[in-house]
């Protein structure tokens, strides 16, 4: 176990614990930067997909993991970001302007939606956002002149600093573009969590009443959380649209909303790492399933058959196991393993035990 001595007050709010931890993350970043040179185009595409999902996951994590507002409608914001980006590009705006604007538009729309949602709690918020996600499909069809309706839209190649970036033509450039966005968003997120705003998010999540007593403006905090969450999700949506190349009203269905929420639960609610772990699971699960299906098919000598709904079924099963046995997700499990090694042989089973709360309703009858 390493012991970090505190030599200055700034050390308490520094984003990294010590030089060792910082160097680990720098090595990870270097690996990520070098990935296009090591991987072939197919796996590079998969990796890009995982990174885009991680951005979306971070967007939802701000709202659900750190502010405690469960949203089942974030696919709607993915859609808004995606369409806003493409429509702005079609108006002739450069990508470097259209992309942040798409995020901003999504964030502002998120705030407009958040204002009535402030009064809702728990399941009512979940249901309202679910309804919003279902509605978004129809809204896209109805606003056909803007969105292309059922026929959908095609993403044009974009130019950044004179370099043409296209998902199929130049997958490496596209990967680096996504990686740049990931790094910026992650750094922003880390900084948010050590700023007063991020702290007040966590206070609202843990107890609204105590947060209010400590002087946190609940409504303003929630609106800010919605804004940041929706803006980041909009950015992810814009990248998703460029990555998919073509999309229509069914691309961002309500199932995507639910998958997004499940993803951050599997990864680990309330941690930035969780968004990445969840994205890795959701990104590589289809590949893993198709490989293992071939393997099983070869083993029993039969041919491989397509099983519709296999992915969501397996995903649901994984999620059930996580909710039952590891509510803190993959990141929580990793923390436990790491603590076991750091404290060896002093780790005890109940070190991460959480207090149970028994149900008491506020209903009158």
């Amino acid at each position: 176990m390493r012991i970090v001595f505190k030599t200055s007050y700034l050390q308490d709010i520094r984003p990294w614990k010590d030089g060792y931890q910082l160097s680990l993350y720098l090595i990870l970043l270097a690996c990520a930067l070098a990935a296009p040179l090591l991987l072939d185009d197919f796996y590079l595409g998969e990796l890009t997909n995982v990174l885009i999902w991680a951005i979306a996951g971070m967007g939802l994590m701000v709202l659900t993991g750190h502010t405690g507002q469960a949203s089942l409608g974030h696919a709607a914001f993915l859609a808004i970001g995606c369409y806003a980006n493409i429509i702005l590009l079609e108006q002739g705006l450069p990508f470097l302007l259209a992309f942040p604007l798409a995020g901003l538009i999504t964030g502002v729309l998120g705030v407009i939606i958040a204002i009535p949602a402030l009064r809702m709690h728990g399941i009512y918020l979940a249901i309202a956002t679910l309804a919003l996600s279902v509605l978004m499909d129809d809204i896209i069809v109805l606003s056909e002149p803007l969105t292309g309706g059922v026929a959908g839209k095609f993403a044009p190649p974009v130019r950044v600093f004179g370099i043409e970036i296209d998902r199929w033509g130049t997958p490496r450039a596209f990967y680096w573009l996504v990686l740049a966005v990931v790094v910026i968003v992650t750094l922003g997120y880390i900084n948010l969590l050590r700023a007063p705003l991020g702290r007040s998010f966590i206070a609202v999540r843990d107890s609204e009443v105590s947060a209010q007593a400590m002087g946190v403006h609940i409504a303003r905090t929630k609106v800010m959380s919605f804004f940041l969450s929706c803006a980041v999700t909009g950015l992810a949506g814009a990248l998703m649209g460029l990555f998919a190349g073509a999309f229509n009203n069914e691309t961002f269905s309500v199932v995507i909303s639910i998958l997004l929420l499940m993803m951050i639960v599997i990864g680990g609610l309330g941690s930035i790492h969780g968004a990445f772990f969840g994205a890795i699971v959701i990104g590589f699960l289809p590949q893993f399933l198709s490989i293992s299906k071939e393997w099983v098919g070869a083993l029993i000598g039969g041919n491989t058959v397509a099983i519709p709904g296999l992915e969501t079924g397996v995903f649901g099963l994984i999620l059930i196991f996580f909710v039952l046995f590891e509510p803190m997700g993959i990141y929580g499990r990793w923390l436990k393993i790491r603590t076991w090694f750091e404290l060896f042989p002093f780790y005890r089973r109940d070190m991460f035990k959480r207090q149970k709360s028994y149900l008491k309703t506020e209903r009158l009858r």
Partner: protein
Amino acid sequence: MDNLQLVISGLANGCVYGLIALGFVLIYKATEAVNFAQGDMMMLGAFVTIGLTNAEYMGLPFWVAVPISLGLMAGFGVLLDRLLIRRMFGESQTSVVILTIALGFVIRFVAGLIWGHEPQTLQNPLAGKDIRFGGLVLGLEDVAVITVTVLLTLSLYLFFARTKLGLAMQAASQNQLAAYYMGIPVKRVQGLIWGLAGMVACVAGILFAAKGAVDPSSGLLGIKAFAAAVIGGFGSLPGALAGGLIVGVIEPFASRYIAAGYSQIAPYALVLLVLILRPHGLFSQIRLKKV
């Protein structure tokens, strides 16, 4: 007369929504959690009955198959509670919600594996018959759906209001710990509630499959039932049925009088509107939180 016809068909549809919503309310009333898999349990109930009744599967007589499938689904509900929900005792509401969503995915997948993804209808003795009533043509199924739903809601309401077990269930939901101190077997009560919810889901499934075709993704109907439950306020059984009927009646009228494309968004827009105006449902039962 046309409008009356629309109302009747809307009522019959609304009854199915109302029955799913009834399942939400039952579980919410007893455990303060929302079962997002209720729509999928409805679908499973329908498929179990189809598997027992239809000629291409087991071919049992309809009136023999119905009690068996009711029993099976009640058993399924109890089993769910034993295996999954009971372990969530003392965890937050959101985790239960996420667990049931995942459960819905798994149920849909398994039903697709067993019964395939083709829409199927339940072969039942009431199919294709109708009653003429003045100028009105009522499908016998529609009449049966409405009657069964009203009877079921009434008996459940009386069960909660009058019987000892019903009161115990309410007490267990209001304050788990206090109910436990009073000698109520909270865990067993919760198991019974899940069994009951499974049974109600099965009734809804049978009625749904008798009226039209059911396929594994029919469980998504549950989203419309949310509308019903929200409109009715999550805590009240008659409210849930009323909400279901409102949603059911609005749908055919919307598709008739509002331009195509706008009509199918009516139920969801209604939910959003209700939640914005009355954040805890139309018949709200929550006052300010006490610390």
